[in-house]
């Protein structure tokens, strides 16, 4: 019995190693939230591209800054023109490693993703906590974290300083599906 189960686990591992399995989503969601006593600002992007390499546990994310949709047109305009300068820096990217990804099977696990986040032309090393659920045909990730605007050289003019938070809460949800070529 023991030999049999060892055999099956071995077979499972081999098939995994051969696959060079990639999981991908083009419809990842990233939203951010800035909270101040004067005004709350919220924007959502539903067109985030994210790729997970199941063999190595590496992941890469690409975000179009102009795909962030705000409730107010003026906020969206200011965000794009003054703060993140999306004409000059149209994309934000994240490249990193999911720690202990090979040990995840089936159940939801909290894991750290360590990597580099590039936005507004500035790269910072970050570690992000995520709840990851990995099955044969789905890699789901959810979580949130805070970023400091000053870390990314985003300047907020003093006149609106009180209505934009220095710390922005970023939430994400990705449902990666197996990528068929």
């Amino acid at each position, binding site marked *: 019995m023991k030999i049999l189960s060892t055999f099956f686990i071995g077979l499972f591992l081999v098939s995994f190693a051969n696959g060079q399995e990639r999981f991908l989503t083009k419809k990842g969601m990233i939203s951010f939230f800035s909270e101040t006593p004067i005004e709350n600002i919220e924007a959502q992007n539903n067109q985030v591209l994210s790729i997970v390499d199941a063999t190595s546990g590496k992941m890469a994310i690409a975000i179009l800054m102009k795909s962030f949709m705000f409730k107010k047109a003026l906020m969206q305009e200011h965000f794009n023109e003054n703060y993140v300068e999306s004409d000059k820096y149209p*994309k934000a990217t994240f490249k990193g490693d999911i720690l202990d990804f090979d040990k995840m099977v089936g159940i939801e696990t909290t894991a750290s993703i360590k990597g580099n986040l590039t936005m507004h032309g500035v790269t910072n090393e970050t570690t992000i906590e995520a709840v990851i659920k990995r099955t044969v045909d789905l890699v789901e990730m959810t979580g949130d974290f805070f970023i400091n605007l000053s870390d990314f050289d985003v300047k907020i003019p003093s006149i609106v300083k009180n209505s934009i938070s220095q710390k922005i809460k970023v939430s994400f949800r990705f449902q990666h599906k197996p990528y068929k070529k």
Partner: protein
Amino acid sequence: MKKIGIDILLICLIGAFIAREMYNKPHINVAENPADISVTANILLADFSLDETKANSKYLDKIIAVKGTITNIEFNAEKATISLQTEDDFGSVVCYLVKDEFKKSAEIKEGQEVEIKGICTGFLMDVILVKCVMMHIK
């Protein structure tokens, strides 16, 4: 003296009104505005794969009318996403329709040739258009 006071009050009121109007400025309505650029899905993707920086300055934030054949339709939560065929193996043009827009064109199906109008936000694996509305169904 009293008259100046009223004048100042009036100016302040007008100023506050304008500020409020600007603050609540509505989003651009794609359906009511003419397209800035008309292209085929094929040319749009080719432009982006050839020189992304140049294509960004040409297409970003503009209302684009794009013609192409539907390869895929996805629905979720009253919103539909339509992918248009290109000669490229990996990339396509992906149009995110505004809410309820697909009801107007409930009979759209894969293989159909359509023209869709939307705002271009850039290029990842595909060229992405948001706030899309259907224009013609042949």
